Structures are given as C-alpha cells and as structure tokens.
C-alpha cells in the first residue's frame, strides 16, 4: 500500500506501527536505489549508514522536528521541507557517511582519503545547520558514535535495566563490580562532554 509522505509523518508521529514499517520499506527501497550517488561502500557499511540515517529521520519525526502543518511537510524554523522526505533521508545519510569516513580513515583508499578531506570541511560547514538541535538529539547522535563497549554497558543498564551483577555475567571481562561501575561512569562522562561540546558549539554559531 502506498502512502503519501505527509501521511507517513502524521502516522509515524502517532506511533502507528504498520506505517512505521511502511516508511522503513519506502526509505530502504529509495536508499538502495540511490546510495551510490552519495558513496560507494560494501553491503555491511551501507546497511549501517542506512540504519543510522533512518533512526535519525524517525526520531526527528517523533520529536516534531519534521512535522505536518496544513498538509505541508515542515522542518527547521517551521519552513517547508525543500524536496521530499527521501531527499532529506539521503542528506542525513551523506552526513552519516562523512562521520563514518572520519571514524574509519584507516580502511579508506587513497582516493577516498582525498575525498574525505574535502568532506570533513563539508561536515564542519553543515554543522551550522544543527543549531536548533536540542540536547536530546545531540545525546542521541553521540550515542550512535559511542564505542561498542560503552554501548553494551549503557544498553544493558538503562535499556534492559539489568543490575551490575547481571551485566558482569554478560560481560565477563570485568573483574569486579567496581571496575564495571567505573567503566559505566566513564562512558557517561565521555557522553556528557561530547554532548556539551556540540551543544556549546551550536549555541556559539
């Protein structure tokens, strides 16, 4: 069943599960057919970039950063979106790719590295557009860049609500509860510093 993009945004905001799924399929189909215009990566990296881009789009809809007013899709400052929802998705994907490039410089070819230098400038410039991001969005973005270890600890603790004893069983590399507690605290601290830095940078622009 085909929905309009306006309907997608309205229904996803209302947490309609069927439409969430339809939006996912719609975006995935578009992404698979157009990602090569943005980057060339293998299936695994491409899947990761799509995943992050789609989550960002989804959260923007849930947090009313993209919303519908009088039948028109609107974004930052209440201005109508330029282009379609899928175009917006691809612009998010482009930014995610730039971030991915910076994190994975060691596996890029010379050509990609040269391209990457230019894209870092673009990334820095594009951060000008994130001045309206609130702390929650910034934290969500920082979480997506967290180390795998921190991700595991914080997911088990705050999402699955496991006790430290349970987490020690799942992550047996921690020798003591105190060591785990310290690691968790450091993850939170790193997250807080990254988020605050981005927040301050946004305010300064």
């Amino acid at each position: 069943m085909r929905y309009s993009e306006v309907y997608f945004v309205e229904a996803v905001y209302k947490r309609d599960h069927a439409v969430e799924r339809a939006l996912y399929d719609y975006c995935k189909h578009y992404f698979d057919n157009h990602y090569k215009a943005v980057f060339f990566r293998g299936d695994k990296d491409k899947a990761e970039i799509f995943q992050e881009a789609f989550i960002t789009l989804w959260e923007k809809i849930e947090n009313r950063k993209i919303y519908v007013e009088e039948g028109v899709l609107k974004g930052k400052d209440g201005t109508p979106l330029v282009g379609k929802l899928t175009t917006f998705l691809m612009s998010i994907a482009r930014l995610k790719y730039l971030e991915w490039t910076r994190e994975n410089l060691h596996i890029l070819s010379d050509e990609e590295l040269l391209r990457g230098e230019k894209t870092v400038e673009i990334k820095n410039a594009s951060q000008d557009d994130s001045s309206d991001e609130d702390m929650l969005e910034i934290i969500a973005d920082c979480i997506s860049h967290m180390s795998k270890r921190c991700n595991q600890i914080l997911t088990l603790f705050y999402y699955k609500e496991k006790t430290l004893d349970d987490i020690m069983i799942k992550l047996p590399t921690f020798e003591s509860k105190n060591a785990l507690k310290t690691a968790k605290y450091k993850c939170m601290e790193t997250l807080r510093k990254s988020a605050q830095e981005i927040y301050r940078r946004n305010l300064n622009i």
Partner: protein
Amino acid sequence: MKEDYQDRIDEYLLKRMSPEDCMAFENEVAENQELHEQLSFTEEVRHAMRSRNEKLAKMEEWEKETESKSRLSKRRLYYWVSGIAALFIVGFITISRYLSSFDKGVGTEYAQTNLVQEEESADIEKLLAYNKYSTALEKINREIETELHEISFGPGCAEDEGIEIIDSCTPDTVCIIDDIDIKDYSRENSKEEFREESREKSQSRLTYLYWLKVKALIGLNRIDEALPLLEDLRRDSEYGLQADSLYKLLKR
C-alpha cells in the same frame, strides 16, 4: 559529574529506592543544582537509549521478515519453474511417443508380434540366467509348439493379418510390416515375399528356441536329451560353431 551522585540517580530512575529514600532524594535534587543537572542528563541518556534500541529491535524484526518473505517467494518460484519443466518433459515424451507410433504406419500393431516374441525370449533368457531351468523349459516347449504350428500347418494369424495389410495398402498409406516397406513391391510379389519372409523368421526363431532348450536341458542335467538337439544345431545353423564345441565337450 560525580560518581556517587550517579549511583543514587540510577537507583532513583530505575525505581530501586524505597519510597522514603525517593522523597529525600527529590528534596535534595530541588536544592542541589549540580545533582539536578546530572539527573536531567541521565534521564535524557536513558530516554535516548530506549528510543534507539526500540527502533533497532523493530528494524531487525522487519529485516528478518523481509528476508523470510524473499526466501519463500524464491522457493515458490523454484516450485513453479520445476512444475512447468516437469509438465513440459512429460508432455514432450507423450507427444513424441504418440507421433512415433503414428509415423510407423498401418503395420505397427501387427509388428507387435515381433515385440511379443522378443519379450518372451527375454523372459526365457532371464529364467535361464536365474537357473530356473524347469520353468524355462516349459516356456521354450510352448514357444516351439507355436512356431512348429506356424511352419507346418500353413499361415498363422500374423501371416494372414500381414496379407490383409498388403491388400489394404494404397499409394497414400504407409505400409510397413516387420520393418519392411512393402510399397515398392507389386501386390502379388509382396504377398509371396511376405510369406517367404515369415517362414524364414519362424525357422530362425525355432533354431534359437532349440538352442535355449539345450541350455535348459544341460541345466537340468538331462544331457542325453540335449545331445540330439546339439547334433542338429551343429549342421549349418547360426549356432553351429557353439553347438559343435558344446557337443564335443559333453561327449568327452
């Protein structure tokens, strides 16, 4: 950010505090700005983690569904293609059999007589191969009787029917009897040729049956009965050489 604050914040948010402790904590938060900020930050982290992980879980589920649907549709496609291929093959075999039987022409059903004889011979040979000499001998004797009747008492059914075919042949029909296309012969010549051919075939078959009979008799250790037959077969039959060797062997 203080580590001891974090422990109490976690207990409070994950509802691991007693109601009294909760109330005391809330009062402290109202008065302590740093604690308040750290609590807000932790709440936002918790909210972000929940939101992200719920979405990831849903996306993983959708991917699995898509994958399983794709596998199912590939399997369906495979079954369809296999089914169509099987129908095609069966149809091809059926049609080609029908066409080949049609092409053989009017004489086909009568050429079945040869086919029956071949099957009978195959059966006798099988019986001999499995050392069922008695049963084989019975069959051989019956076959010999039939052939002798054909030769001695004039045209049998097959020959009569063959003559009928010759009579019914027209320039437009295909007339093949026992793999011989008789259209080239005149009607009378054809009948004579056909009769001669039939007799020769019966004689040849008889010789073959006698040869099988020899084998069956030897298998039953009835050498005295086999020797006279071997003597006949030695003289100018297609089994002459073999019969001669066997005769000499038995005579030793």
